[in-house]
């Protein structure tokens, strides 16, 4: 399980150089900056077409320092990482160099899922990190498999999406991989601890990170951290990790097992423009969905000594 991290444990060395192409107040920028600090310089990253490609910039100049990055086609991010990992194994550099696939929610839940499932089945030794901004933000907010219920995008009906979000960590858990974790951009210490832990384990590791997106979700750039924290505190996005089948809720989500301690979901929904057309029935449906997902968590064998 991930160790507790204090603020000054995070190294001061920067791998993400300022002056990149990300929007101001981007959650992904914060995730990537923290994750690279945890992974260190001996890392090879594969990136599909996504907001992350925008961050890496046009040909000639990039804003990621000291780390090798390979840009791949959309569906092949996990497959390319498998190839790199096979080459590292053949060269005997398997222990020294970490191989990471960093994809968006479109590249994970919709287009890249076959590559990811195949790599997990082959027990490839790599970290798969998915940053989830809940739509295809790079191309102008189109609906993806990860878009939540009732959210308006440019390709949904006017009353919002009619289906719930695809539960990707649950799918990966069914692959029997050694480490599955969820995190959120509003908790950089949590992200740092989970990447540090994933780096130590051998086998396929999967980390799913919620990344608030100011232009796509419709809120002010200064509220990125506030929205991320609300998503966790209302119970919409539980933070947990599963190591070798052992389930553990992370610190910010521990007390939320009691339904009375969860903040009302309206707080999270009302501050975002993408939920402005939600009806009362849809909000009731949200409450039912959150209760159902927490019932699932309760049914897991949670080690109560930490609670």
């Amino acid at each position, binding site marked *: 399980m991930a160790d507790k991290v204090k603020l000054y444990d995070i190294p*001061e060395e920067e791998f993400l*150089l*300022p002056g*990149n192409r990300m929007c101001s107040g981007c959650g992904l920028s914060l995730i990537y900056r923290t994750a690279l600090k945890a992974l260190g310089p001996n890392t090879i990253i594969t990136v599909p077409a996504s907001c992350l490609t925008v961050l890496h910039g046009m040909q*000639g*100049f*990039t804003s990621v320092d000291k780390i090798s990055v390979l840009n791949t086609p959309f569906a092949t991010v996990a497959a390319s990482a498998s190839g790199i990992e096979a080459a590292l194994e053949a060269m005997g550099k398997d222990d020294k160099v970490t191989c990471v696939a960093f994809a968006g929610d479109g590249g994970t839940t919709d287009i890249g899922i076959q590559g990811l499932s195949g790599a997990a089945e082959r027990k490839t030794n790599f970290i798969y990190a998915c940053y989830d901004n809940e739509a295809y933000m790079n191309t102008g907010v189109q609906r993806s498999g990860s878009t939540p219920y009732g959210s308006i995008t440019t390709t949904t009906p006017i009353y919002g999406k009619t289906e719930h979000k695809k539960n990707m960590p649950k799918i990966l858990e069914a692959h029997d991989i050694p480490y599955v974790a969820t995190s959120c951009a509003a908790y950089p210490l949590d992200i740092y601890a989970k990447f540090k832990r994933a780096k130590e384990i051998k086998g396929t590791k999967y980390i799913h990170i919620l990344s608030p997106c100011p232009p796509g979700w419709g809120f002010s750039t200064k509220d990125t951290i506030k929205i991320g924290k609300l998503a966790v505190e209302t119970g919409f996005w539980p933070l947990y990790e599963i190591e070798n089948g052992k389930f553990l809720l992370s610190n910010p989500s521990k007390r939320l097992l009691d339904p009375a301690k969860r903040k009302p979901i309206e707080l999270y929904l009302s501050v975002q423009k993408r939920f402005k057309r939600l009806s009362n029935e849809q909000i009731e449906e949200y409450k039912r969905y959150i209760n159902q997902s927490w019932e699932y968590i309760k049914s897991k064998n949670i080690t109560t000594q930490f609670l």
Partner: protein
Amino acid sequence: MWKIIAESKDKRPKLQNYKNWKELTPIPISFPCYGSMGETGDWRVFRPVIDKKKCTKCGFCWMYCPEGVVQKSEDEFFIIDYTYCKGCGICAKECPVKAIEMKRESEFE
């Protein structure tokens, strides 16, 4: 119109050093540099200003900054690189003692 574009070709800043495809490297490679998008500080409408009297050096602004423009200075206070700060305002919002204030850019100069 096209004449003007053709004439300005030599005056534009050079992104790549090669002239045609024959001079390309076998693999297209990018190299790290500060400000690959240019000086992103001119996106900013509000400028974060740190009040050193209120600051407790907790480091929240450094941790939460998405760009990494908040850095530690020699006297252990934090300074903001205004060349690249995009002015999102997360540091001012998350500061526990409200030592950072967002001021309009027009107030300066």
